[in-house]
């Protein structure tokens, strides 16, 4: 199943092909991720803190028996850390063969866009944004940043250090 999703996510050579994105809100900003990498959306449940982990890793929760790490996307993108409440939402995403929960303020919409609507990340963006933002989409004169999930987990950074 995992492989199937991965290949479908990678099939993006055709600029006319519409792809579906899930958009969500962190503070006042809007972001989106490819719907193919989203497994489910669930409410916030208190996480078990992990010792000696970066601040943006909120801890781990039980996802039907699997241990799911929760990344505070706001903190990860360099904004202020989220104070999670019952209204917050966890987007369970598939990154490679791992599942990760992304803590966001709210999920807003499902967008259907073609690849040619995707604009490159504006050059004003910070390094942090460049790491995670794959491009921007303008819809109804609002800017939505497309998040690439590959670097959301701390793994690669840690090993390099």
């Amino acid at each position, binding site marked *: 199943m995992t492989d199937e999703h991965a290949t479908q996510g990678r099939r993006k050579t055709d600029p006319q092909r519409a792809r579906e994105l899930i958009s969500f809100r962190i503070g006042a900003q809007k972001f989106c991720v490819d719907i193919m990498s989203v497994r489910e959306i669930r409410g916030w449940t208190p*996480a*078990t803190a992990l010792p000696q982990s970066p601040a943006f890793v909120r801890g781990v929760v039980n996802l039907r028996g699997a241990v799911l790490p929760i990344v505070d996307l706001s903190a990860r993108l360099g904004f202020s850390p989220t104070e999670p409440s019952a209204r917050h939402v966890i987007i369970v995403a598939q990154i490679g063969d791992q599942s990760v929960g992304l803590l966001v303020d709210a999920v807003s919409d499902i967008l259907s866009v073609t690849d040619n609507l995707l604009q490159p990340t504006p050059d004003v963006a910070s390094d942090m944004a460049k790491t995670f933002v794959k491009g921007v989409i303008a819809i109804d004169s609002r800017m939505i940043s497309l998040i690439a999930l590959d670097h959301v987990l701390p*793994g690669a950074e840690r090993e390099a250090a």
Partner: protein
Amino acid sequence: MDAMAEIRQTFFLECEEQLAELETGLLAIDDGDRDPETVNAVFRAVHSIKGGAGAFALDDLVSFAHVFETALDHLRAGRLEATPDLLKTMLRAADALADLVRAARDETGVDAVRLATLAAELRAVDPAAAGEGAADQDESFAFRPVPMDESMFDGFDADAAPPEREFSIRFRPHRDLYAKANETALLLRELGGLGEIAVACDASELPLLPDLDPEAAYLTWIISLRTGAGESAIRDAFEFVEGDCDLEIAQAGADRAGDEEGLAPGDVDIAALIGKMQASVEAELARVVDTQVPRAASADAERPDQSRSDHPKPDHAKPEQAGASIRVDLDRVDRLINLVGELVINQAMLAQQVQEAGLSRASGVATGLGELEQLTREIQDSVMAIRAQPVKSVFQRMPRLVREVAALTGKSVRLVTEGEHTEVDKTVIERIADPLTHMIRNAIDHGLESPERRRAAGKPEEGVVRLLALHRSGRIVIEVSDDGAGIDRARVKALAAGKGLIAADAPLTDEEIDNLIFLPGFSTASTVSDISGRGVGMDVVRRSIQALGGRISIQSRPGQGSTFVLSLPLTLAVLDGMVVTAGGQTLVVPLTAIVETLQPKIADVHGFGGGARVIAIREEFTPLIDVGRELGYRAAAADAVGGVAILVESEGGARFALLVDAILGQRQVVIKSLEANYQHVPGIAAATILGDGRVALILDVDAVVASSRTEAQGHDLLLATAG
């Protein structure tokens, strides 16, 4: 996967089994097993590989297997003596065959020169080639050697025109022959292909209808065959029913003095035969009746020497159990295990909620839950048993390793394995293979002395390496021992001091010195040999054992050898733990590490400078480690008096006290990997899910102890260790 690839995969899987059987059989023969069935099993293993390889056009494999098979056939027929030298060659041939199979599987090349040499050696043992016929030991009649060319072994195209001879064959199928879906008519037809055939049926054993067991075998065929093919060709026709029938092949006109069962060739007078065979028939009948009672008993009766060994020959056991075992994809088993894990957690959650709801213990719900709990545990145990496998799969790789290392070091080594049927989780088996390989290499390379030194020490030249597995108090214990010189403690200590691992004048007990070999960067070999001592030594072994939740210890006696003892959990799926809280978080401490728990008194806790504290336990000062602080859950050290101290024993046997806030209880937890979706977290072994549905972390006691030690030690020492 296409169908062909799937068949191919099955073929290679079966090859591995055949190869294992081949090696086991050869080793048994080497150990003095003279049961013809053992030789047959070995022969069949090579034959099956050859047959399968032919189907896949693996020519190298086929031609080598053929040469090997030819040599084995001589051994089977008794034309070759099972000398140690011959078996050495055959074991090497088995290794080469294994290499060929693997090369064919992975589509890589093989050492053609080595194969050619071995093939030549195998051909050289061929007595027919050497021009000497030997007496057939198994049969009561003299064997006349026939030319052994290739066509002989291809079965029935032996048109090289040896003189036609007449054979009389008495073929008495057993019940098992039919049970395995063999068909006598086909066998007879195959025989008919060899030459002129006349078949008579002896139905004298057939009981009256009321006594007839529809599944039993009562018929005997008396066949007379006129053929140019040799006896081996006739035996080949019966190859697949061997062991499931009585087969007597006699060459008519041959000298058969004293053989009462000799049959007249040509027309067979059944009535006359009945009289002649009365004695043997009666014995047969008794055996047929025997098969009505538990079949194992009769099998044992037939082969008394096998019942004594605790493991029946695989080939013998397998067909009997055919249908009793199935091949299952590992993923399916793992999914089932995961689901049962969920069930356990769910059941715990339910129990907790019922308790919170304030239902009385006597209520129907509570008793029902109690039963559910018991059932869940039983299901869990049974499911775990599916993953459990005998350690044999690892142990049987070792004889080859021993042979290779022995050859490289010029030492003479005998490997003794015991308890290879001890079962443990498949993952554990997979992950102990490398450490065990390393330890056995070490045992031969460093442990055993050279033959000269052994002689000088009054020991037999042949060193013994023992590999032993057994279950002990819910864990599996694996011992690797040698009868070598034991650890040279003076040298170990000097080496460790020379490498800055210890102070030169450190007062160490013998045990502490022995444990120095587990230190990173320690290697006793003065020259870096090909086999071990590549700098990655026992520390790697210890780390991989610890990663499995196991421990390793060593006992060594100068002049008598060393024993390494591994103690490993039976499964990596569940763990008995103590649920505690520390720094506001719930943690699980593995029960195996815990020695005792106690309530610290203010008078017992002493500061030791730099925030370090010790606690006096029965007048022994033990380092007190604040778990909450160590894991970074709180900045300041907790007040020792309010908490609970858990006395743990870390790998080296040293004791430490872990300070936690409170103990919540003791329970079995399902181990969940943190690495699957995240990464390794220092100080944490794994995670689990508790009754309230929340994730709790399982403490890695040794890692916490180690990290508290590094903090205390300061950087100078740390650098010394690293260098």
